[in-house]
């Protein structure tokens, strides 16, 4: 009678980019299991890069073929314009991050060994290496792809975990400053687990309210279900906490500086660019699609969060003495600027302009960030990377080109015209002004001015101060790192001088908004 089970329809072609990445990750695990140690790196690198490039090609192909208007995989995954744009962005950022990861000397030889012990030394001499970082990265990237595309909350949760768990591990693998690295991993894991729990609890409460975890159905229930407001508000709030944590919005920003500081720098680059992009994609989808009808309620809260995030990021960055912590606070401040765009909702045209602004900002910021962290990996002294800001004094004299490129990245972060950062900021602020969030924009520009101070401070250090006698040396970059820095610098210039093509792309990606 009712013995037949309807087989779900899965649009494999639409999901192909994710499937390629996840497939390559699984192959990577098999390589770890069966390939001899000396071959592993040689297999992993091409496999990882090729799968990312292939996934990118598939994403482009999908975008050219036409953007679907319905969610795929029985409504679980929405492959729409914004999702495809975000996928493309994440894949490019992941590709360049992997080129950094491939560079030698970032990762510990034996993570389980006690820092400074004989065991560790022995592992170092025997040439041990954690080659499983490549499949881990691929899993994380797969999670990043799924997270912003997930159309129901449970898939979103799974994606969140797939994205985060490998990152927790990767954080703890820094070769230098082992204790900081381990601390970062534990901190990130504990706080991340909390935030995931919040997310899951929020999902459960919303299910209780709407009877569905599908974003569109939750939105549809907003107008019809009465008398369950407590469930709704608690659920939405908890969901918000989980998402804002991943972005690093204040007051959930505390993990960011510690984790960015302790992680191996290439992993920091991946997190600062890819994770941020993915988390913003998911945040937008949950708030605009799932809770779109509730914007009168969440919008004031996000106003407050945005203001707090901008101020906290910009002000606390001033006091930092560690270059990576400084960049972490800068990333918090930029998260705040992006949140300004999230609240700029209104008519469909307004939403499109806000969404395309955010998408452009994410591209601009992500590329520049990877470039900046790539530069950080190159400035070293005896104890590894020269993390203390005072060590950067006079870098402009030692290696003018590298310092000039880094200064350029900093100016882009500060949003000086003729850099990509300016147009990103402009796009978001313009959307916010036309969306009626002018006060938020004023706070934003004041925060930008404060933020400019600490970016400029580093330029002062590099160019106007005299170099220390035993200052750090700039290593001759490997071909991969040089390519990453070159790519990031080029992108920052091109997007700053002629942003139209990417703006246009972002606009057409945002045109259809999120599918429901």
């Amino acid at each position: 009678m009712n013995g037949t089970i309807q087989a779900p329809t899965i649009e494999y072609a639409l999901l192909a980019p994710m499937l390629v990445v996840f497939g390559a990750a699984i192959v990577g695990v098999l390589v770890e299991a069966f390939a001899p140690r000396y071959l592993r790196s040689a297999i992993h690198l091409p496999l990882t890069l090729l799968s990312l490039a292939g996934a990118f090609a598939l994403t482009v192909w999908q975008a050219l073929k036409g953007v679907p208007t319905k969610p795929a995989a029985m409504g679980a995954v929405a492959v729409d314009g914004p999702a495809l744009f975000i996928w493309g962005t994440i894949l490019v950022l992941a590709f360049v991050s992997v080129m950094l990861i491939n560079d030698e000397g970032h990762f510990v030889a034996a993570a389980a060994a006690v820092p400074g012990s004989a065991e560790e030394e022995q592992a170092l001499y025997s040439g041990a290496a954690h080659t499983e970082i490549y499949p881990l990265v691929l899993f994380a990237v797969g999670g990043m792809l799924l997270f912003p595309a997930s159309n129901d909350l449970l898939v979103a949760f799974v994606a969140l975990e797939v994205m985060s768990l490998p990152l927790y591990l990767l954080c703890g693998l820094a070769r230098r400053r082992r204790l900081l690295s381990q601390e970062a991993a534990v901190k990130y894991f504990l706080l991340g687990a909390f935030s995931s729990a919040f997310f899951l609890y929020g999902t459960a409460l919303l299910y209780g309210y709407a009877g569905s975890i599908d974003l569109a159905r939750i939105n549809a229930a907003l107008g019809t279900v009465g008398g369950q407001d407590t469930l709704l508000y608690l659920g939405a709030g908890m969901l918000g906490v989980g998402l804002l944590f991943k972005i690093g919005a204040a007051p959930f920003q505390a993990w960011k500086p510690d984790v960015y500081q302790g992680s191996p720098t290439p992993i920091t680059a991946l997190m600062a660019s890819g994770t941020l992009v993915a988390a913003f994609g998911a945040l937008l989808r949950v708030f605009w699609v799932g809770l779109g009808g509730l914007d009168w309620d969440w919008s004031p809260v996000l106003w407050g969060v945005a203001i707090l995030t901008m101020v906290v990021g910009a002000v606390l960055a001033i006091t930092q003495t560690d270059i990576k912590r400084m960049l972490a606070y800068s990333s918090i401040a930029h998260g705040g600027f992006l949140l300004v765009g999230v609240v700029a909702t209104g008519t469909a045209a307004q939403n499109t302009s806000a969404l395309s602004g955010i998408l452009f900002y994410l591209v601009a910021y992500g590329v520049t960030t990877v470039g900046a962290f790539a530069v950080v990996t190159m400035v070293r002294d005896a104890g590894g990377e020269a993390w203390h800001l005072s060590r950067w004094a006079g870098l402009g004299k030692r290696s003018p080109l590298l310092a000039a490129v880094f200064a350029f990245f900093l100016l882009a972060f500060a949003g000086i015209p003729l850099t990509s950062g300016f147009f990103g900021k402009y796009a978001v602020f313009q959307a916010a002004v036309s969306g009626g969030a002018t006060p938020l924009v004023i706070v934003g520009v004041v925060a930008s001015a404060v933020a400019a101070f600490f970016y400029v401070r580093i330029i002062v250090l590099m160019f106007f101060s005299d170099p220390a006698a035993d200052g750090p040396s700039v290593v001759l970059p490997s071909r991969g790192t040089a390519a990453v820095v070159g790519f990031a610098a080029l992108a920052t210039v091109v997007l700053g001088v002629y942003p139209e093509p990417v703006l246009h792309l972002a606009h057409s990606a945002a045109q259809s908004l999120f599918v429901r």
Partner: protein
Amino acid sequence: MPWLSTLMGVSVLGALGVTLVRNDKLAKQFTLVVSLIVLALTVGMAVQFSPNGDKFQFVETYDWIPSFGVHYGVAVDGIALVLILLSVILVPIVVLASWHDAEAGKRSVRTYFSLILVLEAMMIGVFAATDVFLFYVFFEAMLIPMYFMIGSYGGAQRSYAAVKFLLYSLFGGLLMLVAVIALYSIAGKGTFMFSDLVGTVQDVTTQKWLFLGFFVAFAIKAPLWPFHTWLPDAAAQAPAGAAVLLVGVLDKVGTYGMLRFCLELFPDAAKFFTPLVIALSVVGIVYGAIVAIGQTDMKRLIAYTSVSHFGFIALGVFAMTTDAGAGATLYMVNHGFSTGALFLIAGFLIHRRGSQFIADYGGVQKVAPVLAGTFLVAGLSSLSLPGLSTFVSEFMVLTGTYQRYMVPAIIAATGVILAAIYILWMYQRTMNGPTAESVKGLRDLNAREKFVVAPLIALLLIFGFYPKPLLDVIHPAVKDTLSSVGVSDPAPAVPVAKEGQ
């Protein structure tokens, strides 16, 4: 021929070229040649400008970022033309004057000269932009080369001064950015072209807010009292050449912006805020002059005189009479030459003795008569001696202001007297009296330095006796601006004397 783009293109290509030249001396010569080519091209453009023709000439408009409604739009009217001329005349002079400046710091000479040429392109762009967004882009971007010029090649306090300069200007610029965005949204035209935006904001309250956004940025840039505190630091720490470009040209962007954008885009708000701006200007005139008298450092003194002079310019802009407006525009040009000469000669003097302090000098006239003589002429131009071009502009501003605002004009006129005190007293302490022991061995100006000073003094003299060519160009543009603001000159209080009386 796309004149304005060519000018900018030549400068930018020149800047790239300088970085490629391996030899420092060759790099300097190359820079000088490029700046002279730009000057020649600009003169070639200027002679084709017809003062009574279209308001904007040499128009070029291309789409730059259609998604934002941004155009690459450049063109000049009379006001922009004379300011561009000022810029391109000062650049080769500064290049020649800075011949040995960059070597003191053991920093890259090529970078310094390359930055000058980048700055030149941006100075042309900022005055020529007919797209508000493009103007903003140049307005902010030009801070960066100047920041590096001050920070890398300046005096002992250079990094403090450079950061202060950058942050003040950046902050003002960001406020302006909000106003620019809001203007775009409210106008709803989907374009940033200046001509399309004029008259789009009708609501007076909105106008007031937007006016403030623009005005604060320009007042910081100009700088108007009480936004001036960054200027003495920046000008005193900058190398002399950079100080000339900073005070002579970059700061003019502020007063130019008031005239072009604040007045034309927000006429009602401009009228509302006129009393306030006039009060600030008059306070600035007197305050700048009094503080200048008390300075012990020559470069700071000159910087404070500029605060006073910028008060005059802002006063002329906001008096909203043809005379005052034209006078203010002329003042911008003359002030560039006059303060330029003053900064450069003071720079030569400081370079010889190695001190900026007035007290370290005395009786220089006897050992270096040419230096002292040119310093005197430059100083006299700063106090607006009749016969020098600055007198014409200051007189026009004062009479133009008097037609509408009598009391402020009278108070402002005291600035003329105070100017005599700060200039002559400085001259007296450094150049007259017994020759100080430390300056006994001072050399007089060499040939290169004479080549630097001669054109400036010549220009001051020529335009002092015959300002007509400049005024012919400026007058129609100012008239046009004021008529679009909707003000007309007040009727003369005394009937004009009839012919033959």
